[in-house]
């Protein structure tokens, strides 16, 4: 099983480098922009800060300070962008390989199905963690290089690392959901559609929760609601939220294990179609 894990991790080598550098460049772009547009944003927020259309895309009220500006672009958009990779990768791991035909070779090896799911899931978890580590390292280098331009930010390198790495349990929810739906639904495209819809609803739902009672009631279901950048920088890691996210990940992984255990691989059918003899 460990060798399968290594194989799965090696397959993601390019993605780790590519997405890690990509996310690092995204944060570099934000930091380079800040000295230029920081003041301009303050004026904009005075006029548009409480506009619902503006709020759909994040808590822009907090952008009057550097920590608010930085945490919004990291806590709101980093997991959103990485969730796209999570959905692609999560649905590819089982459903994608099943449709491509490569899963048949793995299934013919002396491994239990739970071992296959677990090896793939752990490889995905480690890959995502490595992407965030590459992002964090690039951000720290950028931060040190731009220390003079940024001035006094009140944000330490430790804060930056924690803020970026905390995206991991949030993004993993989408990845584990994609893995589960890939093992449960007949086709990968159905699984990808399902998780993408959830991502869109969760992103806008979380940002607009303050404007609607219905959305406010649903907010605990949105993973983004457990990733408040400003709060994280001020109060540190919220352990209860972290445990909740880890619990959700574990529950989704268990569902993926159960679904794949029962799956008729290569058939592309709903789980309940197997036993039927017409």
């Amino acid at each position, binding site marked *: 099983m460990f060798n*399968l894990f290594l194989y799965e991790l090696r397959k993601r080598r390019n993605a780790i480098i590519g997405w890690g550098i990509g996310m690092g460049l995204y944060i570099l772009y934000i930091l380079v922009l800040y000295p230029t547009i920081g003041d301009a944003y303050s004026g904009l927020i005075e006029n548009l800060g409480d506009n619902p259309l503006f709020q759909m895309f994040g808590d822009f009220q907090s952008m009057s300070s550097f920590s608010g500006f930085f945490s919004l672009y990291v806590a709101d958009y980093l997991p959103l962008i990485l969730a796209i990779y999570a959905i692609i990768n999560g649905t590819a791991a089982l459903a994608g390989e099943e449709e491509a035909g490569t899963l048949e070779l793995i299934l013919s090896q002396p491994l239990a199905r739970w071992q296959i799911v677990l090896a793939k899931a752990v490889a995905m978890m480690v890959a995502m963690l490595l992407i965030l580590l590459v992002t964090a390292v690039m951000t720290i280098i950028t931060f040190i290089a731009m220390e003079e331009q940024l001035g006094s930010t009140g944000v330490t390198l430790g804060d930056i690392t924690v803020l970026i790495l905390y995206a991991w349990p949030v993004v993993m929810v989408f990845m584990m959901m994609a893995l589960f739906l890939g093992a449960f639904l007949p086709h990968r495209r159905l699984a990808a559609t399902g998780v993408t819809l959830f991502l869109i609803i969760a992103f806008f739902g979380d940002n607009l929760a303050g404007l609607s009672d219905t959305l406010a009631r649903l907010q605990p279901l949105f993973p983004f609601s457990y990733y408040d950048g400003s709060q994280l920088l001020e109060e540190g890691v919220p352990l209860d939220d972290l445990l909740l996210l880890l619990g959700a990940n574990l529950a989704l992984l268990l569902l993926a294990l159960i679904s794949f255990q029962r799956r008729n*691989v290569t058939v592309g059918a709903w789980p309940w179609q197997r036993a039927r003899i017409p």
Partner: protein
Amino acid sequence: MTNVIETKNLTVYYGPHRGIVDLDLAVEEGEVFGFLGPNGAGKTTTQRVLLDIIRPSAGKATVFGLDCQEEGVQIRKEVGYLPGELQLPEGMTGRRFLRTMAAIRGDNHPAFRQELCERLDLDLSRKIDEYSRGNKQKLGLVASLMHKPALLILDEPTSGLDPLVQQTVLEMVRETRAEGRSVFFSSHILSEVQAVCDRVGIIRQGQLVAVERVDDLIEQQLRRFRLTLVETPGDNAFNFEGVSILDRHDHSVTLEIRQNLQPVMEEAVHYGIVDIEPQTVTLEEIFLAYYGAGNGANNV
């Protein structure tokens, strides 16, 4: 003799669609068992059930006496599998792929792996993306053979290979049998089944319609003779049930016989026998006789 594969009333449905129905199959230890049938007959479904890739709707399948669902891991330790629709992961070299598969399996036969690659003339330094269809098939074959499994399950193993390599593969199958290991050889190419298999099972529309020794099948079921006679036989000569006249020339007649030879010989004696020349009947022709016209034989 012990059975390495045994199925009882094995049935698989894909929703409303038939996969296999009430399949009773027994493959003996140390034999090469040919599994013949046209596309869609249920060959691949049967193999996938044996490897627990697909779960049966009813019935039971065992390999080495172990239940395919309950003890799949134990079974797969001793099984080498070449899928018919072989798909390999891209972005890695052939060497990396084989090493990965060997590591996952816990295989310790690197020298044998190398020997197989050399015999199949397989270049392992290239990326799988750059491999031709034939080279991918060779790679799949090495992956299925390299751990010297007690049971080989091969689905169309010579597909995409050139004739010389096909012969090498068939030779490898014979060697596997010579070492006392078993092979479940699925194919729709009858000549290669005839060349390497001890017994053959014919599957048709999901049901096993016949299991015979290849030799018996050829010898007993369908014969073809060219008779040279003293007198020219009449128009109604050899008009028996199960006898077809394939060719007729003055004193000679070519007959295909699916029945007892006795009435044919009695009639031949009547015209005076000069010569009896047996002709080779291929397994393909026997297979077509089993299937009959319009029963899927066109797919073969």
